[in-house]
């Protein structure tokens, strides 16, 4: 499918789609998103009641869905949904000993609230789904779009990710030794050589079309696998390239999910070594922080990069490789617009 519109809210200045330079510096363990002014996008009344994940998701989606009234699917990936609202509601349950509670936190915290809100705000009754499969939540949203397009002959689908930093998921993950105990920043994170990473958040939205003349990038294929054995990442890499009839020489750009965690970064090194012909090796978690759906931010950056390349007749491929906690692994293959 073809990516024809992109919009992102992230810890970098992405909302204008003009590139991420100069880079916004983040220190410490939490890379918070730079939220746009939502006035004109979400009504003040609605905005007041929305948690961060909901407003980021809707804020990123609205510029696309209001421009395209003929969208035939709204598909999101979010590992945790509105976790901040969810735990606030939980705390009220405990604090008031299961007394009378306002349902707002309960209703708005469910991960499917964002896709539901986008549908009701635009009166769009088409296919609507929310995938919550941790480090494969966004990937399954992408796959869902492929399935919808191929089986229902659908042309235009909104696909995106939403994950927020909440105090609570930070506390839970910190106790699970997922974040660093020492101070790092954007520039030192990936060289830290210590266990743990930093926490990030984003909402990246894409309009995917089955057919398009003008587009940012074509999504050629996705491969997802879990709990690989020792050589399986390399095996899956070679099989993925073979399935798409390309060789390592054809991959000119690579996005790798290095997150500075000394326990798992070795997996990225393997793919970096295999992609020795690539002219550009990019990292992205030093910009956006780690979160289960951060690969969506890599798709955003890669789309922007491919879009800005000068025209050539040589097919230009970008490979994205990411893994979450070394449990859930993904390859995504993109092709530039100027390919022969």
């Amino acid at each position, binding site marked *: 499918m073809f990516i024809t519109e992109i919009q992102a809210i992230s810890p970098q200045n992405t909302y204008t789609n003009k590139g991420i330079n100069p880079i916004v510096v983040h220190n410490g363990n939490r890379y918070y998103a730079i939220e746009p002014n939502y006035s004109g996008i979400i009504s003040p009344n609605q905005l007041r009641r929305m948690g961060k994940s909901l407003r980021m998701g809707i804020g990123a989606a609205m510029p696309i869905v209001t421009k395209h009234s003929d969208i035939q699917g709204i598909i999101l990936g979010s590992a945790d949904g509105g976790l901040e609202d969810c735990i606030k509601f939980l*705390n009220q349950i405990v604090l008031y000993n299961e007394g009378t509670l306002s349902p707002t936190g309960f209703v708005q915290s469910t991960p499917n609230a964002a896709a539901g809100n986008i549908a009701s705000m635009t009166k769009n009754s088409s296919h609507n*789904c929310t995938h919550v499969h941790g480090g494969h939540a966004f990937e399954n949203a992408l796959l869902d779009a*492929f*399935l919808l397009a191929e089986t229902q002959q659908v042309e235009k689908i909104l696909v995106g990710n939403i994950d927020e930093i909440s105090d609570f998921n930070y506390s839970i993950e910190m106790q699970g030794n997922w974040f660093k105990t020492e101070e790092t920043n954007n520039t030192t994170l990936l060289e830290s050589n210590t266990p743990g990473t930093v926490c990030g958040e984003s909402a990246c939205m894409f309009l995917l079309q089955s057919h398009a003349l003008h587009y940012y990038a074509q999504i050629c294929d996705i491969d*997802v696998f*879990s709990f690989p054995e020792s050589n399986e990442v390399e095996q899956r890499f070679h099989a993925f390239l073979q399935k798409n009839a390309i060789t390592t020489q054809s991959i000119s750009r690579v996005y790798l999910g290095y997150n500075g965690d000394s326990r798992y970064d070795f997996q990225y090194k393997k793919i970096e070594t295999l992609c020795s012909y690539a002219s550009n090796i990019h990292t992205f978690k030093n910009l956006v922080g780690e979160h289960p759906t951060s690969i969506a931010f890599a798709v955003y950056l890669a789309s922007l990069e491919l879009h800005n390349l000068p025209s050539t007749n040589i097919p230009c491929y970008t490979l994205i490789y990411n893994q979450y906690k070394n449990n859930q692994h993904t390859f995504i293959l993109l092709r530039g617009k100027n390919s022969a």
Partner: protein
Amino acid sequence: MNIYITGLGCISAIGNTVAQNRESLRSQKHGLQYAKYLDSRYAHEKYFGEIPYSNEDLLKKLSITPHTELTRTDILAHIAFAESISQAQLSAQEISDTNTAFISASTVGGMCHTQELYNDANCIGSPSPYIDSYNCSSHTLHIAQQYAMRGITNTINTACSSSANAILYGMRLLQTKRATRVIAGGVDSLAKFTVNGFNSLQIISNEPCKPFDQQRNGLNLGEAAAYIVMETETTCKTKPRLAVLSGAGNASDAFHSSALSEEATGVVQCTEQALQQAGLLPHQIDYINAHGTATDNNDGVEYKGFLQLFTNIPPFSSTKSYTGHTLGAAGALEAVYSVLAIMNQELYPTLHTTNPMHSSLLQKYTTQQITHVLSNSYGFSGNCTSLLFSKA
């Protein structure tokens, strides 16, 4: 391409196995009572479809040795998953095949351990053993790891239609040849979190629920896990074909976060899609396993949808009057019941209802010829899904 159902597995308040569930449905024995294991002040005020075993006793039913501490949600999922793959005679090698997909669903995940989550999220005391297991996807990943699954795995959360969408997603993976075999379904266990959430919306009944009664007064929450194995001609070969998944439809009601629209937009649209995919006309439906939560809004709008879709409404019932509303597991549990109805040519009536909204509401057990069954699931945020099962 025909999608065959070759395995079923479920555990609910009315039985630990598919056979026990069927026996309870046939004998009209519901499982709604005060809760014994749910930690909530409402445990003895409201009726629940609780599975009547402690976590320790449920763990004894597992045939595997788990890698980690399992939540109640994980345990229930494991039990139903094991039954479904056993009936479908899937070998360990077939389950590990890269072409075997596992698509699950949940809305509460490990949050059933509400007190531990409260402590962990607020950094009270030392971390609980469930620290990595609160997420909706935890049970899916535990099972994928346990069975060394190498194909596509996924977890869907579209509220109360979650596992119906897991089945729809599995169907499309088969149709596009991204998988040759799919195990799909879902799980949810009772949790203080959801009990208080639904209670804050004032839609929990104080008595066993009365779906499609003119005086219906709300739902009962329940817990369950249910999975179905789906295969195509190439993989199911000589295996018994329990039923065919002939159609599925997904639509958004695009109206409200916790209520369905008076126009029944999503309700009508998802059924129309399922019928269209199956190449069927409304009058060919022999039975509807309705969503039928027994809330004023759901049953009213679902019924309005029936009036728009059918000239003569076929026999319909809501098996939530046996199990309670099992949320993310409901679509898959009712898919299992729909397949049972087809396999055994029998229909399970709605219980507790005394003033039905329509004469087609089934109120007694009947046997009759059944070829096509429609199963509906609707979730908060307008997520509406219909599945259509047909005789193999």
